[in-house]
């Protein structure tokens, strides 16, 4: 080490730590300035789904949008869906919102311990599910209840899980909303963030190794991208060109932390794709047609053995993180209202009306209809009980089942002990 080297004894200014800060905090007046990365509808090119990743390194820095401010579908990504299919999507989005609203109120009424809404993010799940095949496997986070609704899964079944009641196929073992529906290609939700990501890649690798035609798709929040599982998933997906779609739902917030704490100040989440040499898209997540188009493109890519796609779905978490959260403590009250990409239900509705395929009256009627559907489902579900303090809806014995396929001696003994002790204690 030369002593003449630069640095020693230099009079240089001190370092400082950069700690990100969101644009607005409680009390601030929100006014989102023009954000050039949000691009105009129709402005982004659509490469062939088999294009090499290095021919589309621009895409992560822009935004795939189909619906323009008036509600017209424009540009190369327009999926040209029939009005019937668009109406079906709208209905499912409305049904999802109604379901959330009702279950949220059930929790507030003390009927269960916990609930999480996906308000404002309905397009992300519904439109993606519409663009996938029924046999494709979904590895969701807790905010993709829309996938089940898109696949016409029983609301009663979902509610029974939320209530941990006698009808709960998961035997009351899981926190509300941690659904598992193999029949609907919906993987068991984990409470540990991002673990589903490498699992989706593994499922896709298995499908590829077996010469199957089914692909996998996974979802995680933008905050969750910081977990190591995200990196494992992308690395394995890239190395083995796994037929998988990896969605990052950037709803701007992770509980109280804005997306800057996951790296969103420095670049987009779609740009993560570049580091792994895989295709990356950044999509208007409140534009159901854009979500559909991007998912369709990525599915075709995966199914054609052209490898994985990372899609950032740019959206906004319009409500609290969960029933345990009060966002007014950390973000400005009207951020959701001011979010530049609007509301996905309103936007799809406007599109259909513009096409002459929908009107306010039909919309109001449909809102009423899905509300009734949810209310009826709730009545059915509640017949099987709701969760409350000390009153068990499940047979105790089930607690010891399914730890292993066959119950080992220690669990059998523990079950017997529990029964004996409760008996001895007269309960």
């Amino acid at each position: 080490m030369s002593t003449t080297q630069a640095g020693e004894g230099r009079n240089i200014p001190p370092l400082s730590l950069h700690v990100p800060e969101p644009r607005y905090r409680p009390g601030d007046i929100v006014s989102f300035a023009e954000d050039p990365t949000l691009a105009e509808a129709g402005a982004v090119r659509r490469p062939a789904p088999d294009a090499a990743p290095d021919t589309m390194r621009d895409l992560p820095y822009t935004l795939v949008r189909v619906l323009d401010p008036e509600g017209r579908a424009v540009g190369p990504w327009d999926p040209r869906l029939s009005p019937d299919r668009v109406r079906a999507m709208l209905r499912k989005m409305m049904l999802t919102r109604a379901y959330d609203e009702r279950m949220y109120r059930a929790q507030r009424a003390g009927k269960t311990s916990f609930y999480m809404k996906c308000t404002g993010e309905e397009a992300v799940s519904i439109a993606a599910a519409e663009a996938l095949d029924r046999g494709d496997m979904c590895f969701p986070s807790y905010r993709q209840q829309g996938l089940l609704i898109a696949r016409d899964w029983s609301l009663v079944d979902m509610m029974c899980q939320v209530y941990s009641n006698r009808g709960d196929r998961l035997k009351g073992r899981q926190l509300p909303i941690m659904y598992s529906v193999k029949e609907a290609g919906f993987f068991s939700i984990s409470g540990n963030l991002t673990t589903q990501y490498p699992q989706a890649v593994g499922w896709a690798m298995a499908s590829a190794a077996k010469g199957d035609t089914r692909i996998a798709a996974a979802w995680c929040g933008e905050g969750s991208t910081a977990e190591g599982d995200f990196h494992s998933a992308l690395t394995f997906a890239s190395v083995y060109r796994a037929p998988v779609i990896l969605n990052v739902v950037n709803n701007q917030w992770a509980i109280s932390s804005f997306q800057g704490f996951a790296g969103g100040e420095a670049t987009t989440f779609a740009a993560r794709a570049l580091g792994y040499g895989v295709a990356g898209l950044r999509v208007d997540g409140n534009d159901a047609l854009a979500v559909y188009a991007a998912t369709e493109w990525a599915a075709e890519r995966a199914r054609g053995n052209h490898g994985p796609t990372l899609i950032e779905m740019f959206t906004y978490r319009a409500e609290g993180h969960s029933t345990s959260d009060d966002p007014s403590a950390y973000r400005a009250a009207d951020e959701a209202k001011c979010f530049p990409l609007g509301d996905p239900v309103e936007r799809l509705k406007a599109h259909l009306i513009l096409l002459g395929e929908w009107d306010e009256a039909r919309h109001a009627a449909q809102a009423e209809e899905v509300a009734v559907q949810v209310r009826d489902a709730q009545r059915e579900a509640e017949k099987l009980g709701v969760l409350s303090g000390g009153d068990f809806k499940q047979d105790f014995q089930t607690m010891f089942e399914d730890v292993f396929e066959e119950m080992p001696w220690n669990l059998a003994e523990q079950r017997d002990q529990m029964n004996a002790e409760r008996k001895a204690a007269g309960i």
Partner: protein
Amino acid sequence: MAVMNMIQAINSAMDVAMERDPDVIVFGEDVGYFGGVFRATAGLQKKFGKNRAFDTPISENGIVGVAVGMAAYGLRPVPEIQFADYIYPGLDQLVSEAARLRYRSAGEFTAPITVRSPFGGGIFGGQTHSQSPEAIFAHVAGLKTVIPSNPYDAKGLLIAAIEDNDPVIFFEPKRIYNGPFDGHYDRPVQPWSRHPASEVPEGHYTVPLGKAAVVRGGEAVTILAYGTMVHVVMGVVAEQGIDAEVVDLRTIVPVDIATIEASVKKTGRCLIVHEATRTGGFGAELSALVTERCFHHLESPVERVTGWDTPYPHSLEWAYFPGPVRVGEALKRILED
């Protein structure tokens, strides 16, 4: 003196430690601006600035990893892991790095980190908001593991942990953040203000690591417990009028063997209570230690009342939780033997 609940006491401990030592910093998911999902770090960013109290990416691996590097620099990091259930992605940095840094560098580098994390069940949190993984840490050479059971201890132990020159895992029994829950989930919980240990000095003091507290003297049986279970045990003992000696371990590594040994040699009987899964839980180590050291004084086999060997089930929580019924039945067996 002030009246504090557990959260307030823990918050006060960090406040005091940060006041006294500019090298103490706190960080973690939602820890900065918002002050933590359980509000344990509320107000610290405002008071000490963003350089000393800040939010982090959702990466437990990164949180512990950067803490090790900060400690090597000379800071005293106090990271929070939002729930103990989420500590596994950070485990390698804890067990392979923080725990062994002093040893492998023969003292050149050290890792005086205090990892705080809410743990334990009883809040209808399901499998991933209820776990008690203390046994995993107890098995790792080079880590200390501390579990307070009341506000006074929580503050004193946390300050001691932060001032300790070795890595400490500080598990906070979240069920008793707001009151000393005795396991009777069907009765209203008393607030801390009615409990003497809610009297907490506002300034600096420490409760030494590695020292248990005999929270109740007795002759008939020794009960070893920590965290929430101390209150469950005390409730049963009081209700049933048993002359038990209740030892609140407070630190499980290094465990206060002298206190344990003296008590069991006196009573001749021993019950161990913890919430974690039974097989391989810390109760096994306690049972082994007691038998190894007090064998000829024992009048009945050491018993364990613990969580069952299953994941933590959401709706069957109160059947899983080692509550008053199970503790009571075990005490009957032990005293009758």
